[in-house]
């Protein structure tokens, strides 16, 4: 928080005069809007699509909620009946209990109906809200599997997760309360009608306190919401600071920042305290207001209603019914105003959900797309390919080359030369702007993406492991692979030995992202995964990380094994890899500038020779040191 930077004197007595304390804890990133417009037809109609399949259940729920409300309304009336027609006359004129008996029987019937309606209503709505919640989440998750990778690259995972969880959950809350809102609305109208039916004059008198409550609440809700927001925000800022302290604890301790950080954090915690106290004060202020209005209404009923009883205009049971209604009277108003906030929150969430669902699927199969089959060879060809993530800034300009079946080709070039983009095009992660990419002699746009995926195995620069066992990770989506095939692949890449040393061998559970394995071991597992997939073409983005020399040797061996009998297309950083390639393609600023084997390129004395000579032992930093954007 900016306020912290202005008060250095608390923590650094020995600070030089005029210097600032450059210290904060946690991030001050502003949160997303919590509230949207209360009603947005477009969002509602999109969301309705998820509810529509359960239309008949919605109707059942609404009917049940109306029956439930009707029974609620009936109870004071039955009591009135019991008092006025059952009890009072019986007392006054002999002991005829039949009216009372009838009233109580009716009462029992109504409360049973009430319980059943409640059961049906809550059950149907609860189940429906859960179903819709999961349906929306599934639709979004499924959609994200197909949206363009450039969207995924630009978007933080955390942000998407908060869509899939927080926003989806607030839709659930919305669905549950909106059926309740129907009931509350009906209850409010029902109470008004019942009171007016009992006695128009007294009813109007009592109802006159209603507008007061409405007005007070409208002013109140805005203030309360601001207070609630401030509390919520201060809380998430403090929680962010705590998370940072936990993740960065090693840096905190080695820099000796414990004292200072505790001081800074305490201020955040103070702010949490003060905003929450403020919010609590605002939330509670409504209690005496509602109670006062209830008191006024009851006093009116007693005074005015009492004289009406005396004048014979109203029976005593009527007063009792009034008193019962008054006590229930403010409940629907309270929950309706709360539902208004829920609805605003839901609209903001709904807007974000739809945003995700509307991200275009960049790549779709043509209607007549055919699968690549085993009959297709393993050649890869670029024909005058032009491509850019932003059409005005091409990262590949007129790139043409061909890799024949069984060849190994290394792609080298400085950062930003377009190597990774070229690889992504082979797998059709993106579509070219001009020209064509051919795999097995067929344009990648004419074949199904699924078959393309099985024709190409890909090893990414950063090995990525999922939570699960070793064998699950190696097998991954090649589900039909047998245990023997997995073991064979692991042996081939030299991973078998270390896997067998793990506590439970192939059944060992990996930690988050394979944290219990070394970088090199993770790399070998991802090699094994590609080998099990057994595709005719292998695309590999070599790791740049500095791995110790022993692991490096193992990886080189595994690579050779992996490339056996396959077409290999490698973004290479290692000298050994580059030298082992049949051909080297040098890219610069999106164009192929040199191509040939190592000796030919060295003889040319061009960019490749220059880069090669600059480099010390590994080929990972091909940036020219004079350019700070390319260095490291």
């Amino acid at each position, binding site marked *: 928080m900016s306020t912290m930077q202005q008060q250095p004197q608390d923590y650094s007595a020995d600070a030089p005069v005029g210097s600032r304390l450059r210290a904060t804890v946690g991030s001050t990133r502003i949160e997303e809007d919590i509230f949207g417009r209360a009603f947005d037809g477009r969002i509602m109609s999109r969301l309705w699509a998820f509810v529509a399949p359960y239309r008949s259940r919605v109707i059942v729920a609404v009917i049940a909620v109306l029956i439930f409300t009707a029974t609620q309304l009936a109870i004071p009336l039955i009591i009135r009946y019991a008092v006025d027609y059952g*009890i009072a006359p019986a007392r006054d004129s002999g002991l005829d209990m039949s009216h009372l008996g009838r009233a109580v029987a009716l009462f029992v019937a109504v409360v049973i109906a009430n319980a059943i309606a409640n059961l049906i209503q809550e059950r149907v709505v609860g189940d429906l809200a859960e179903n819709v919640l999961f349906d929306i989440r599934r639709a979004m998750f499924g959609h994200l599997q197909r949206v363009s990778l450039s969207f995924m690259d630009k978007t933080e995972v955390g942000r998407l997760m908060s869509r899939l969880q927080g926003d989806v959950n607030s839709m659930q809350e919305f669905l549950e309360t909106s059926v309740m809102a129907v009931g509350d609305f009906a209850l409010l109208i029902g109470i008004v009608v019942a009171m007016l039916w009992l006695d128009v004059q007294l009813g109007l008198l009592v109802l006159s306190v209603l507008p007061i409550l409405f007005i007070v609440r409208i002013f109140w809700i805005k203030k309360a919401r601001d207070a609630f927001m401030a509390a919520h925000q201060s809380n998430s800022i403090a929680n962010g600071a705590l998370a940072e302290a936990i993740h960065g604890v090693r840096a905190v301790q080695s820099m000796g920042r414990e004292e200072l950080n505790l001081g800074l954090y305490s201020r955040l915690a103070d702010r949490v305290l003060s905003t929450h106290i403020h919010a609590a004060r605002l939330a509670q202020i409504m209690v005496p207001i509602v*109670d006062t209005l209830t008191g006024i209404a009851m006093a009116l009923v007693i005074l005015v209603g009492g004289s009406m009883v005396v004048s014979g205009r109203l029976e005593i049971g009527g007063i009792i019914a009034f*008193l019962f209604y008054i006590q229930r009277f403010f409940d629907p108003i309270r929950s309706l105003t709360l539902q208004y906030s829920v609805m605003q929150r839901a609209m903001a969430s709904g807007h974000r959900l739809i945003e995700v669902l509307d991200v275009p699927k960049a790549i779709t199969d043509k209607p007549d797309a055919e699968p690549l089959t085993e009959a297709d060879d393993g050649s890869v060809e670029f024909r005058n390919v032009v491509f850019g993530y932003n059409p005005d800034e091409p990262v590949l300009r007129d790139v043409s080359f061909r890799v024949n079946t069984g060849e190994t080709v290394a792609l080298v070039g400085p950062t930003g030369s377009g190597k990774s983009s070229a690889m992504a095009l082979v797998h059709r*992660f993106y579509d070219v702007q001009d020209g064509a990419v051919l795999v097995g002699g067929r344009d990648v746009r004419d074949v199904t993406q699924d078959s393309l995926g099985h024709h190409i195995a890909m090893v990414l620069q950063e090995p990525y492991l999922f939570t699960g066992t070793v064998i699950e990770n190696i097998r991954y989506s090649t589900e039909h692979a047998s245990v023997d095939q997995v073991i064979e692949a692991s042996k081939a890449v030299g991973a078998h030995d270390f896997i067998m040393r793990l506590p439970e061998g192939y059944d060992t559970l990996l930690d988050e992202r394979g944290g219990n394995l070394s970088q090199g071991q993770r790399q070998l597992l991802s090699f094994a995964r590609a080998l099990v997939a057994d595709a005719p073409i292998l695309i590999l983005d070599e790791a740049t990380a500095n791995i110790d020399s022993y692991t490096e040797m193992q990886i080189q061996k595994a690579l050779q094994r992996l490339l056996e009998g396959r077409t290999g297309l490698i973004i290479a950083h290692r000298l050994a890899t580059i030298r082992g390639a049949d051909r080297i393609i040098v890219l610069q600023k999106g164009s192929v500038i040199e191509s040939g084997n190592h000796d030919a390129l060295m003889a040319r004395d061009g960019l490749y020779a220059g880069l*090669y000579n600059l480099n*010390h032992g590994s080929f990972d930093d091909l940036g020219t040191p004079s350019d700070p954007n390319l260095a*490291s």
Partner: protein
Amino acid sequence: MKAQSAPSDHPDGDGGRQIVPDFNRTASVGLDRSRETMRRIMQMSLAYRRQAGLAILCTILGVLAQLTIPLLLGRAVDQAQTALTAGGGTAQLLPVALMLLAMSVLRGLLTMGQNFFAESVGHHLARQIRAMVYDKIQRLPFSFHDRVHSGELITVGMLDVEGVRMFFSTGFIRLIHLVLLIGIGGWLLISTDPALGLLALCFVPFAAWRSIVSHLTLRATWLVLQEKLAVLSRVMEENLAGIRVVRAFSAQLYEMAKFDGASKTALELAHRRVRIRVTNSSAMSLSFFLAMALVLLVGGRQVANGTTGIGALTSVLTFMTILQMPVRQLGMMVNSFARASTCGTRIFTLLDLEPVIADAPGAPELKITDGTLRFENVSFSFDPDSGPKALDDISFEARRGETIGIIGAPGSGKSSLVHLIPRFYDATSGRVTIDGQAVNEVTLASLRKAVAVVQQDSFLFTTTIENNVAYGDPATADHRLHAASGSAQLHDYVTGLPEGYGTVVGERGGSLSGGQRQRLSIARSLLLDPAIMIFDDSTAAIDAGTEARLRTAMQERAPDRVTLIIAHRLNSLKHADRILFLEEGRIVESGTHEKLIALGGRYAELHVLQMGSAEESAA
């Protein structure tokens, strides 16, 4: 929670050992433990005397005010009735009406006071616990953080604090409220009309029982549901983070099947929870209304008999409506107790841990004189009881101005060795000294000021580059900050950014590349001007040219300090005054680059391996 995490079993300073609490979220807490936890929560809550006292006072008075309302209503009805039958004016209704109004206002104010002060206690308590948790987490040593997942600690700091915070208002105060309401109200009822009173209360045991049972079941299923949802969210999170792998293997269908599998179990559980909730709430309502029907029937007969007034019947009926809510919420209170007890136990387990690495009593500050670092027969193991030795009998000395290179295969103990110097861990045996002072006998603050470690993966804080560089010395002067980042080969890059030093970087580094992150973390350490500077494989992502310039820049200050460098690239070590070759925790070779090459041992072998394919490119 396992018994081993009880505070009495605390480690006795035997190396880096730290008993790790079991933060299992579904585990039930033993009764003794639970009672102790609740005692501590209550003690801490009641320490906010004014607020807690006011909350309790408001609760008591509020119940009294609340209970007068049914009585006043009854009296009003009776008076209206009398006025009707016996004739006479309605003037006597006025005092009752005014009393009713006054009591309503009073009840409102007292309820407000009750809720506000009770919540206030909770928020103050949370404020206090938050700071304690934060402080403790910051002070627990590396060995603790190695073993406890960060997610667990975050949950303790967020959800568990919340669970304890809620207890005073939703558990304790509401319970007082309910007990008083049933106690005083029930006594009033039964003393005026025993039969009717008992009938009116007859739904209470049933509703209370269902409420408690259903809330406890809901809580148990909630915990399981949370686990299922965690699986689901892990499936989604890993899919999104690894979307390139998913695409590369065309594994979308496989991933959808994984998602459906995880979601199906969660959904089934969610439906079960709806069922439990709904069945019980309907049953509770029904019991309440049936009791009301009985009161109506019996009370009606009594009124007809003349044994009871119609006002008394009204009183009883209104009282029942007042009682209904708190009784139905009894389950919530029990739930609040259960939650506070498990959350509180986790919090106290954490707070009761004593950092095994802390200042010895009366420890003096480290005094740097010659700047000599010595390892004297140092052995270390992460688990002193059974674990293998990570370091075995290490001895060496480094004088001011010297650079020591450390090399060895992964797991050979390189990082463990340097981590003993700033006491990230404590040696199991032997001594690490700086100018003759053992590192575990001086204050941590002074030690860590003198020793800076640049870690392999540098953690950046979500703030500006400036604040990150100045992390260890936030009050430093601008020119020192710029000099440090200049030496780290960072300054030029930063000044080229649109927002310069004000650029915000994040935990994940945001826009910075791996090499830039490492340079930032080097600048951060250089700013401290430490007597001992350690690079733990922290130049791996920096290209060779920049690394060479970095080395030159650092040579200026090198005469004033001991430098230790861990690296895989022999190029980074060649210039060292001495190179230690580690294998399985032992120094197997030691000497200058030339000497080790001449020795023809492991180092020489590695040299051939690394340089063999690049002999012509060696600069």
